[in-house]
């Protein structure tokens, strides 16, 4: 889309900058940003998000619980596994289903594939070009093809890991309430382990490469919210934690986190104790760094910033850390792989309410379902990471722009806003250059 020419008038000292992000077509989660600056002060800043999950909540009503995993996978083309795992966690909670350790392990492996794929795409296609001054990943590829090739190799590995467990990489089809529809063949797992082991040098190089990228120092106060777990770095299960000491189960989410409608957005914005909060990779690492393997903690200590971090610009580094972790974790979990006698346990539906969550690449993803005696969905509620981060993004934009300096050119302000928004990797950050800038000088 072409940016319209800036509109300007030269009357007086005051300067009004208005940045509008138009609604985007053909992306999951359409959004817009409106920013108005008058006389060196931010007069208006509003992030508008037009999200489809609410429609999915209604579409799920009346459907059998068996249809839910495949339906919710359609909400997002880049993190279908997250929607599937949160859904089966909630429905298994509703029906009192205890899946066996094999299922839990394979769900974690499947989810590792999604983290690898999603994070690598974000780092190489969206975030990194910002820091090197390229207008796009394509432009960066022309001068640094080896970096992008490495990223795409890792991304492809993530896709193939999803395919191994999920049957296919886009909208995987093997996840079901109670387990999986099928188990992978041992020979395929052995071949995948070889690839995972080979990829560890690439992912460590990625960590070192992102650590060497200079990022702005922009520290802000915010509450990090993420799943926590007593034994593992949380991915597919856990309880909800915050860095103020919160520790509650998924069933208490609605008592701790409120959603409210914003005038300027069709999405609901979440609050925790009356304020915005952060979910996503940085929040996860802030809360769970001691759950990472010791060698990885050592690598962070050697090359990375110190954690917990209050600088959102460290998010790209954290994504690289999680890629490296997910590859090593999948390799570890598949080491003693053996096909199970059955890839799923039996499920007896009942009238109930169930809650479930998991850590999508972009952060905490929470589901609640109410079912009838046959397991049909009577009501569904899905709270995705993007809407949880909405208030935090707005606050970050406000603080970051003030820290960056409102005296910068409109183009620089636009690019800085894009960079700030992309740290959260929300669906609306899809376009590489998505800000439409109009300027008024009063």
């Amino acid at each position: 889309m072409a940016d319209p020419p800036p509109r300007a008038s030269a009357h007086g000292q005051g300067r009004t900058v208005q940045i509008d992000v138009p609604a985007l077509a053909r992306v999951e989660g359409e959004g817009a940003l409106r920013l108005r600056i008058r006389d060196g002060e931010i007069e208006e800043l509003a992030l508008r998000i037009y999200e489809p999950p609410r429609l999915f909540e209604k579409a799920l009503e009346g459907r059998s619980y068996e249809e839910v995993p495949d339906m919710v996978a359609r909400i997002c083309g880049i993190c279908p596994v997250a929607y599937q795992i949160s859904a089966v966690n909630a429905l298994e909670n509703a029906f009192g289903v205890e899946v066996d350790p094999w299922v839990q392990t394979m769900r974690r492996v499947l989810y590792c594939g999604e983290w690898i794929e999603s994070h690598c795409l974000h780092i190489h296609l969206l975030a990194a070009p910002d820091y090197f001054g390229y207008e796009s990943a394509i432009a960066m590829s022309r001068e640094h093809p080896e970096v992008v090739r490495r990223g795409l190799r890792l991304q492809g590995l993530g896709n193939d890991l999803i395919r191994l467990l999920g049957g296919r990489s886009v909208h995987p089809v093997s996840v079901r309430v109670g387990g999986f529809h099928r188990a992978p063949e041992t020979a395929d797992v052995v071949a995948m382990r070889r690839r995972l082991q080979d990829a560890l040098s690439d992912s460590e190089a990625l960590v070192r490469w992102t650590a060497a990228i200079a990022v702005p120092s922009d520290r802000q106060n915010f509450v990090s919210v993420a799943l926590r777990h007593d034994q593992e770095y949380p991915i597919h299960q856990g309880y909800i934690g915050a860095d103020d000491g919160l520790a509650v189960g998924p069933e208490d989410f609605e008592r701790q986190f409120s959603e409210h409608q914003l005038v300027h957005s069709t999405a609901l914005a979440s609050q925790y104790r009356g304020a915005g909060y952060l979910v996503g990779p940085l929040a996860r690492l802030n809360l769970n760094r001691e759950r990472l393997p010791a060698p990885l903690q050592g690598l962070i200590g050697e090359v990375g910033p110190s954690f917990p971090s209050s600088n959102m610009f460290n998010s790209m580094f954290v994504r690289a850390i999680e890629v490296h972790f997910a590859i090593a974790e999948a390799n570890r979990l598949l080491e003693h792989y053996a096909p199970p006698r059955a890839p799923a346990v039996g499920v007896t539906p009942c009238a109930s309410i169930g809650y479930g969550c998991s850590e999508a690449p972009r952060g905490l993803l929470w589901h609640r379902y109410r079912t009838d005696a046959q397991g049909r969905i009577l009501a569904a509620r899905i709270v995705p990471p993007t809407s949880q981060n909405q208030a935090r993004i707005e606050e970050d934009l406000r603080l970051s722009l003030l820290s960056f300096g409102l005296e910068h050119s409109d183009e620089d302000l636009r690019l800085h806003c894009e960079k700030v928004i992309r740290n959260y990797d929300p669906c609306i950050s899809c376009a590489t250059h998505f800000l439409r800038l109009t300027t008024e000088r009063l």
Partner: protein
Amino acid sequence: MIVLRIIGIGSPSGDDQAGWLVARELQRMRLIERLPCRTSIIALDRPGVGLLQHLTGVDLLVLVDAMRSGAPPGTIHRIENLQCIEPDRSVSSHGMGVASALELGRALGALPPSVIVYAIECDSMMADSGPTGLVVAAASALAGTIARDLQQKFAVSACPGLAS
């Protein structure tokens, strides 16, 4: 032996299935058995940047996708000069378009030596609906054209049921 890959790109949304229809028709024609090269025919669901994974070691790529250019629905486009395709600007982690993926492939030196892109002008792209009759007919015709072109390229005499 030359490695030929035919890729039909699509999604379950109405006429966006055009690429899949062509791939399916070429499989039905058993084209693979008729050409003196290592041929594979695959259908992909919005592969985004993942398209590049399928191009390794390929000498000749035939790509079929749906298109909206304003031409009448069912119109078949053939594009041999990829420079004519303008990459869409909405490069994203959620959905890199085919044009951008090809552009990225070119920047990385990852494109096959020969690439031919066919596109079928689509009409309705309603989610979970079937393709329109015009596009189904165009897909069938395009499959025939591709089969004939490849036969000609590799100098294979037409066989009954191949390019019909």
